[in-house]
């Protein structure tokens, strides 16, 4: 890579290769997506018993239920996607590749983002169907995208740390949840704003927080990822 004439192009190609690798292996095994999906549906099912999702309360409770579901299913996916790399020694292979380390981070993060969005795209219509409430509105989809970016930006970094510790899978939610409070809070509030048709000036502060969080933490993760996988 250092000798390349078009480093930025090679960088993008390296990211693309990692994303493609993750998606291709997932399309063949489907172990990650199926686990995430079944788990997400179970969480929604349990919420149905735990808090009676009465028609009158649905617009106010739905965003909370959705984001708890995404956050829980997300940790499952993040853990699995890093455990695969670690267990079969793929991470060492990736580190040996002559690409910038941050390309590995962006590749993994984009892969994880794709998984999150695929799950969301399946869960949202099913939720709409089950609870007879239309949540497939453009505003909410935007919030799902922004929220997932923030979640995955920090999640990918922390999962690559958690996978290298003794406690492994157990550690990720403990590390991740306290630092993604702004994402979850802003995403829930923005989602409920869109569902209740609030005026945009009440929703913008939340979207701004999501955008700011996404930008800040993608940048920070980009800078510190080197320290996390340096061996």
């Amino acid at each position, binding site marked *: 890579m250092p000798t390349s004439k078009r480093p930025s192009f090679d960088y993008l190609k390296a990211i693309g290769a990692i994303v493609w690798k993750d998606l291709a292996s997932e399309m063949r095994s489907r172990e990650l997506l199926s686990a995430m999906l079944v788990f997400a549906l179970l969480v929604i099912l349990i919420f149905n018993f735990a808090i009676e999702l009465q028609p009158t309360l649905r617009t106010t409770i739905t965003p909370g239920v959705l984001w708890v579901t995404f956050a829980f299913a997300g940790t499952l996916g993040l853990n699995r996607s890093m455990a695969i790399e670690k267990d079969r020694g793929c991470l060492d292979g990736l580190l040996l590749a002559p690409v910038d380390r941050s390309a590995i981070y962006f590749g993994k993060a984009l892969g994880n983002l794709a998984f999150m969005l695929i799950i969301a795209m399946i869960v949202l219509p099913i939720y709409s169907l089950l609870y007879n409430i239309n949540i497939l509105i453009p505003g909410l989809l935007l919030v799902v995208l922004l929220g997932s970016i923030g979640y995955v930006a*920090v999640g990918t*970094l*922390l999962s690559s*740390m958690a996978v*290298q*510790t*003794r*406690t*492994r899978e157990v*550690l990720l939610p*403990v*590390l991740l*949840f*306290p*630092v*993604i*409070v*702004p994402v979850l*809070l*802003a995403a829930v*509030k923005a989602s409920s704003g869109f569902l209740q048709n609030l005026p945009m000036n*009440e929703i913008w*502060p*939340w979207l701004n*927080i999501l955008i*700011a*969080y996404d930008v*800040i*933490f993608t940048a*920070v993760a980009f800078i*510190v990822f080197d*320290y*996390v996988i*340096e061996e």
Partner: protein
Amino acid sequence: MKSQPKLLTLLTVLSVILFIGALAMVFLYAPLEAVMNYVQKIFYFHIANAWVGMLGFIVAATAGVIYLVKKDLKWDIVEMAAVEISLVFFFIAIITGSIWAKPSWGTFWTWDARLTTAAILEMIYLAYLLLRKGIEDPERRARFSAVYTLIGAISVPVSFLSIRIWQTIHPAVIGGGTSGAQGSFGMTPAMLMTMFFCLATFSVIFVALLWYRIRLGRLAEQVDQLKYQFMQ
């Protein structure tokens, strides 16, 4: 390990004297608050504990960044020492705050921006300690904990900001209006003096404790090295 430095002994003695002085100022010098009476006295130590908690937080984040740049394990010890002290002092601040809140707000806890952020900060510290426990290699442990401190240091202000926006759009139900306004009081000069004296006292205690903890960390490091030599 060298014997305890004279300055540290001096700091320890000074901490004790200042602490007794702070207690005397709180109970003898500061006037009684008109509405809350003796309940308000806890405020002086509450704010001093919260201050030390924040101080530790800033020291930890700074030490973490310095470690990542310099890769010197002594900064890792500073960072861990600051986190441990901050964890304890913030916990005391939360407890004293709750004791004050019960008579003033009628509840031990509300989901106010400050309270919630304090709780999140404690969670980050606990996660930090769990992370350290899970890694044996000291160099990797130092790297990971420095990264996590950095992530925490950036996310906590964003959390505070977002919870604050949430509170302005939806005011707290318990306590009515913004909970910060409930139970506030004007301070007389004597009260201000007492407050600043407590802040100074706890800052000295913080420095002394930090120093002790760093020394302990270095000793632990030496024990590890001796163990390693013995094993070979």
